[in-house]
C-alpha cells in the first residue's frame, strides 16, 4: 500500500493543482494545504473554532460525516454549500485519494 495520496485544489474553474499528501503522519487537510503554500489562516490551529480553513469539496471519494462541532462552525459562516467542510477536520488517509477541493474566501 502506498503511503501518500493525491488531492487536487481547484484554483480557478478547470484549473486544478495536484497536492501530494503523506498518509502516515496523521496530518489534516488544513495542515497539508498550509504546507503547500495556500493562504489559510487556521487561527485556531485545527480545533474547529475559527472557520478560517473552510473548503468546498467538489468531487472525489465520500468523506466521513462532519461532527456536530464542525457543522456548528460551518453553519455560523455566511456561505455554506452542500460541499462545505473545515479542512482541519479532514484527516489525510488512503481513502482520500483523488479528492478535489476549492478554498473558500477567508472572510466568508
Amino acid at each position, binding site marked *: 500500500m502506498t503511503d501518500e495520496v493525491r488531492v487536487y485544489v481547484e484554483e480557478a474553474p478547470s484549473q486544478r493543482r495536484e497536492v501530494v499528501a503523506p498518509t502516515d503522519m496523521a496530518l489534516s487537510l488544513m495542515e497539508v494545504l498550509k504546507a503547500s503554500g495556500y493562504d489559510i489562516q487556521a487561527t485556531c490551529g485545527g480545533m474547529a*473554532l475559527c472557520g478560517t480553513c473552510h473548503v468546498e469539496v467538489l468531487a472525489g471519494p465520500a468523506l466521513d460525516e462532519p461532527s456536530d462541532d464542525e457543522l*456548528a462552525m460551518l453553519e455560523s459562516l*455566511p456561505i455554506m454549500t452542500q460541499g462545505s467542510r473545515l479542512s482541519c477536520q479532514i484527516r489525510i488517509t488512503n481513502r482520500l485519494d483523488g479528492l478535489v477541493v476549492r478554498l473558500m474566501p477567508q472572510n466568508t
Partner: protein
Amino acid sequence: MTNSISTDICIIGAGPVGLFAVFEAGLLKLRCHVVDALPQVGGQLSEIYPKKPIYDIPGFPDILAGDLVQNLMRQIEPFHPTFTLGERVERLAKLEDGSFQLFTTDGTEIFCKAIAIAGGLGSFEPRKPAIESLENYEGGRGVYYMVRDPETFRDQRIVIAGGGDSALDWTVFLADVAKEVTLVHRGTTFRGAADSAEKVKNLHEAGRARLVLSSNVTHVHGQDGLEAVTITANDGTAETLPVDSFIPLFGLTPKLGPIGDWGLELEDDAVKVNTLDYSTSVPGIFAIGDINTYPGKLKLILCGFHEAALMAQGAFKYINPDKKYVLKYTTVNGVPTL
C-alpha cells in the same frame, strides 16, 4: 464631541498580553490606557475559545481561557487602567517631543508617551455575507454587523441573519425592543445552545418574532438608507420585506488592519522587534504578543507575558531617559498602586 485621553502608555489590544502589560507597566508606576476593537477584553481568549482549558500557564495546571482573562483583570485592578472598548485604533502620529497621538474609529484621541501594540492577529472584523452593495448601507445607514447598543433598534423592523449563538441570542433579546424581528437562517436546525434555539422557536410560535429557515438574505434595497431586504429560500422563492435595519451575524475573523499602515517594519504581517526590549523600528513604539516577530518567536501567552515585562522596562527608559531603573521583586514591597 471628541473624547480625549492622556496617559503614559497606550496599549493597543486588550488580549492577555495587553492586559498583563498593564501590570508590568504598573510595577514601574506607569499609567496605561487600553484600546480594543472588540466590545470586551480578552482578545482571542474571549472571542474564540472562552470555554477551553489552557494547560501551559505557569502555576495553573489548567484554567479556562475566560477565567484567565478574569484573573488578569483582577491582577491589574490596583493600577486603575482605563479602557476604550469597541473602537479600533486607526491612525497614530508622533509629536515633536517624542510622544504620540492616536485616533480611533469613533473619534477618540489618546495622547501618550509610549505605545505598546499588543494587537495579536489584528483586530477582529465581522464576516460579511456576499450581498451586492451591502457596504452602501454601513456606517449607521441600516446595516450593522454587531449590536453595540440595543436601543438603536427600538421600535424598528429588523432582520437578523445567521445560525450561531449571537444570531439566536440577539433575536431573543431584540424581540422585546424592536417592533418586528425576523431571523433568517440558511439551515433547518440550530446546533450549539439548544436552549436559545428553543426560545427563538417559542417566540416564533407566539408571534413575537419570525423565523425563516432554509433561506438567505440575498439583496438589500433603499435610496439613502436601507428600506428593504430580499429573502430567498433554498427552493428559489423570494420575498421582499420592508425593514429599518439588517444585522448579519456571522462571527468575526482577525485582520491585521491599520497596524500594517503605520510605517513599522513588518515581516509576514507581523511587526519586527528587537528582543532587547521589544521595540519596533519606530522609537517609542513597542510590539508584544502574537503581533510581533523575531527569530525563534512562539505565539504563546507565556511568551507574550515575558515580552510585556521587557517592554515595560524599555518604555520606562523611553519615557524617563534620565531616571535609572532598579529591579524590585513584588515579593519584597508587594504590588504598588497607582
